[in-house]
C-alpha cells in the first residue's frame, strides 16, 4: 500500500439527483497507468471530475483517498497543490489572461517554495514547449481562447509537464488530435508516467500504441464491468462494448 496514490472505495456520485457513478472501486499505485474506456455517458468524465472536486458532482456514498488522505477534506486548489492534476476534456477559456502569466501563477501556486525562479521557469517552459512542438507566440495568447482542439490539448499537457503531478488524470486528452499531435501528447504522458500514477480516459485504442497501460478498465453505466491488460483495449477495438453487457 506504500505506493498507492489513489484509492476509490465503492464510490457513488450524483449530478442533480441522477446517479451517474454506481459503485466504483479502484486503486492506483505510483508508476501505474490505468486506462478507462467506455461509451459516451458511461460516467468516465464524471469520475475524473469528481476526483478533482468539481462542485457540480455530489458524492452520495463511498470515498476517495489520495496518498491516504480523504479527498472530501480537501478543496480543489489543495488537491492541485498536493500533486493532483486533471487534463480537462473541455478546458475553460479565460479571455484576457495570457498563457504565460497563467502558467507562471499556476506553477508558483502548486510548487510553492520549490517553484523555480523566473529564469529557471523560462528555461523549463522553453524546453517543454519545444518537446511539445509549441511556438513561443502561444504564451501571449489568451488561455484557450480561440484555440483549436489540438492546441487546447497541447496546453493541457504543457501544464502537466510543468506541474509534474503525483497523480495525473487525463480525460480524453487524445480526442481530436492528428497522428503527430497524438504522438507528442503520448510522449508527454510517458515522461511523467514512471514517477506518477496516471488515470487515462479514452475512447480509442490508438493512444495505447504509444502509452503502455498497466490496466485497462471498461466502464458501463457507472460501473467498472471488466479489467484487463492492454489486450482488452484491442478486444474492444475489434468487438465494441456489446459483448460486455450480456
Amino acid at each position: 500500500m506504500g505506493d498507492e496514490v489513489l484509492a476509490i472505495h465503492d464510490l457513488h456520485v450524483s449530478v442533480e439527483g441522477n446517479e451517474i457513478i454506481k459503485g466504483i472501486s479502484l486503486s492506483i499505485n505510483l508508476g501505474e497507468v490505468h486506462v478507462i474506456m467506455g461509451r459516451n455517458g458511461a460516467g468516465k468524465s464524471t469520475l475524473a471530475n469528481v476526483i478533482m472536486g468539481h462542485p457540480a458532482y455530489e458524492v452520495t456514498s463511498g470515498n476517495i483517498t489520495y496518498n491516504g488522505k480523504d479527498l472530501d477534506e480537501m478543496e480543489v486548489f489543495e488537491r492541485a497543490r498536493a500533486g493532483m492534476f486533471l487534463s480537462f476534456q473541455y478546458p475553460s477559456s479565460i479571455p484576457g489572461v495570457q498563457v504565460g502569466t497563467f502558467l507562471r501563477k499556476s506553477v508558483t501556486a502548486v510548487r510553492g517554495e520549490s517553484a523555480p525562479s523566473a529564469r529557471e521557469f523560462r528555461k523549463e517552459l522553453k524546453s517543454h514547449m519545444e518537446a511539445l512542438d509549441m511556438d513561443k507566440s502561444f504564451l501571449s495568447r489568451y488561455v484557450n481562447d480561440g484555440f483549436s482542439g489540438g492546441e487546447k490539448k497541447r496546453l493541457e499537457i504543457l501544464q502537466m509537464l510543468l506541474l509534474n503531478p503525483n497523480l495525473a488524470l487525463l480525460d480524453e486528452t487524445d480526442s481530436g488530435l492528428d497522428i503527430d499531435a497524438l504522438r507528442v501528447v503520448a510522449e508527454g504522458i510517458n515522461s511523467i508516467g514512471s514517477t506518477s500514477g496516471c488515470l487515462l480516459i479514452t475512447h480509442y485504442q490508438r493512444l495505447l500504441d504509444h502509452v503502455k497501460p498497466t490496466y485497462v478498465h471498461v466502464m458501463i453505466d457507472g460501473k467498472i464491468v471488466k479489467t484487463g491488460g492492454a489486450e482488452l483495449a484491442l478486444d474492444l477495438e475489434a468487438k465494441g462494448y456489446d459483448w460486455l453487457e450480456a
Partner: protein
Amino acid sequence: MMNYPNITIPLRSEHLWRYTSWKRIHPTNVDEIPTADPVKFSEGEDSKIEDSDEIARSFIHSVSKICKRINLVGENKEVDLRCSGHICAGELEINSEGDSSLILRISGDAGWTGIRLIGTVSGNLSVAVVNDLSKDGHFLRAEDWTINRDSSLEFATLSVGGFLNKSDIRVKLAGKGAELRAGIASNGHASRHDDHHFEIDHSIGYTTSSLVMHAACSGSSHSIGTGLLKIADGADGSDAAQVFRNLLLSEKARAEAIPELEVLADDVKAAHGAASAPIDENQLHYLSSRGLSKSQASSLIVEGFLMDAFRHVKNDIVVDCLRTRLLVHLECLING
C-alpha cells in the same frame, strides 16, 4: 453658442442623463460656475478651444482656466494630468498625424475634476486614458474625437479611480475608410459609480467601428454603459458593432448596459449585444484545479475580463501600460 448658465438643465429621461443626472455630477449648485484650480498637464502648448452648446462641455469650458494642445507626429507620448484642490478643471486639444500613441494618466485627489478633450486623428493613433483619481473624487469627462479619411483611432479607457464618475465620449467617423476600435474597462468596487456614455457617429459610408465595454462590479458599486450608434442617411457600407459585458461579483453590485442604434442608411452592418453574469463556475474550477485559491482565481478572472476589453488594441505600448496599471490597482484592492 450659448454659455453655461443659459443652457437648459437636461431631464433624467434623456438617454445621456438617465443614470447620473446633471444635478448629481455638478460640483455645487447647478446655477453656479464655481472657481476651479487648473489641471496640471505634464506637457502641452497653451491653446484655446471653443465653447459648446452641450451642458457638460460648456460647464467645463466655463470653469476651466487652462487649455493645452498636444501635437503628435508619428511619436509615442505619456502625459500626466494632475488634479488637486476642491474643484479642478482643464481642457485639452490633441492633433495626431502618422502612427502615434498617447497615454493620458489622470490622477490626483481633487474633490471634483472636469476634463474636456477634443481630438483630431489623421493617420493611426492609439490612445489610453487611465482614470486613476483618488477614491472619493467626483469626475466629469467630456470628449469629442474626429477621425479623418483612411485614419484609425484605437481608444482604450481604464476606469478604476474616483467615486462618482460620468464620462461622455463622442467619436465622429468623418471620412471614408475611417476606423474606430474602442475598449472600455471599468472596475467597480465599494460604492463606486461609473457611468460611460459612448456615441459613435458614422457620418459617412465605408467606415468601421467597434466598441467593447467590460465592467467588473463588486461591493455595492454601480456601472453604467450606454452606447449610441448613429449611422447617417446615405452612410452605406458602414460596419459597426457594440458589445457591453458586465461581471457581477456581489449581490449588491449593479450594472446597466444599454446600447442604442439610430440607423438611417440601408446597406450597413450594425450589431449590438449586452450581457451581465457572475463569474463562470467552470473558469473558477479550472483555475482552482491549477492550484489557485478561490480569491486568486477570481482575481485572475477579473483581470482577464477587464483586459479583454482591449483585445482590439494592437499597440503594445498602450496595452502594456493598461495591464500594468490594472495589476497595480487590483493588487491594491486585495491588500487594502
